[in-house]
């Protein structure tokens, strides 16, 4: 069944179509959420929330963007909500525009697995920088697709991506 027809049947409340839709997109939602949240449990919760939100608001999706772009947005928003719930203090600091980063203790990178070191470094990025970085490097989206997904100008995409790469490079350069 093609996507258009599947979505139509879901809108009509067809249980079988929902079964298909969830099975097809569960992995996609979970993987994206995992890359953004870096925790399996949180990613599962966020992916579940995202699918529930798709269920509740599919009737309002009129195809102005592609379904995938719409889904990206929903998953990203659910991940943001999850982050806000788990670390409300960091978020307050960000909202006040306090650009100064809290001094974090540098772990012993030489003794860490590469994947763990990268995980740690990604967690040091703000949610905004991490999202752009993941959409580009993991999802392979173009600047214009990222700009549409996040509703930000292409110039902002570029500068966030550059900042994300530079920050990660500075944090990890020692073990390159």
């Amino acid at each position, binding site marked *: 069944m093609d996507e258009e027809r599947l979505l139509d049947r879901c809108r009509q409340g067809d*249980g079988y179509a929902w*079964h298909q839709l969830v099975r097809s997109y569960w992995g996609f939602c979970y993987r994206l959420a995992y890359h953004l949240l870096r925790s399996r449990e949180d990613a599962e919760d966020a992916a579940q929330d995202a699918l529930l939100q798709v269920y509740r608001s599919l009737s309002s999706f009129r195809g102005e963007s592609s379904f995938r772009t719409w889904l990206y947005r929903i998953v990203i928003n659910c991940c943001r909500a999850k982050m806000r719930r788990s670390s409300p203090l960091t978020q307050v600091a960000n909202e006040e525009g306090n650009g100064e980063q809290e001094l974090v203790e540098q772990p012993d990178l030489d003794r860490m697995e590469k994947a763990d070191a990268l995980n740690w470094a990604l967690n040091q990025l703000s949610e905004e920088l991490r999202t752009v970085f993941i959409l580009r490097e993991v999802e392979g989206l*173009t600047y214009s697709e990222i700009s549409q997904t996040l509703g930000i100008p292409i110039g902002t995409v570029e500068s966030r991506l550059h900042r994300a790469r530079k920050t990660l490079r500075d944090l990890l350069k020692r073990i390159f």
Partner: protein
Amino acid sequence: MKCPWEMTINRLMDDELPDQLREGAEVHLKECPLCRETLADFMILREWIKKTPVPEPRLSGEGAFLKLSSSARLPIGFLQKLRAELEEWIARPVVAFRMAVTVALMVALLLASQPDLPANLTQALHDKVRTFSERSEALFQSLHLFSGQR
């Protein structure tokens, strides 16, 4: 130290430079060790993130569907729900392992009952069956004797 071409390096590696600017960036890259290093570092990050393992979710697509169907009260039929639950149940490692063991046992039993087994194996099976029947016979006789004595 910072090179004014730094941002352009991003666009170059992301394939976002129009052809007419691309050539200039590539020429600059040949001349600027700073930008070459930046590009190399950014490429390492790209490779790393692509190789980061993503742990499998504990919930399968079926499990996710079941959760959604219960929290959203989806209109699904009884058979469909049963199928989804069954698939979710089978997807659990313990259940899958037990099922594999059961299937292996059944295959072994089937094989053992084949007539064209190697002679020594068939002999061994026959011996087992004979010992079993002899013991049953002995038991039967002792029971018989016991009842006869009475």
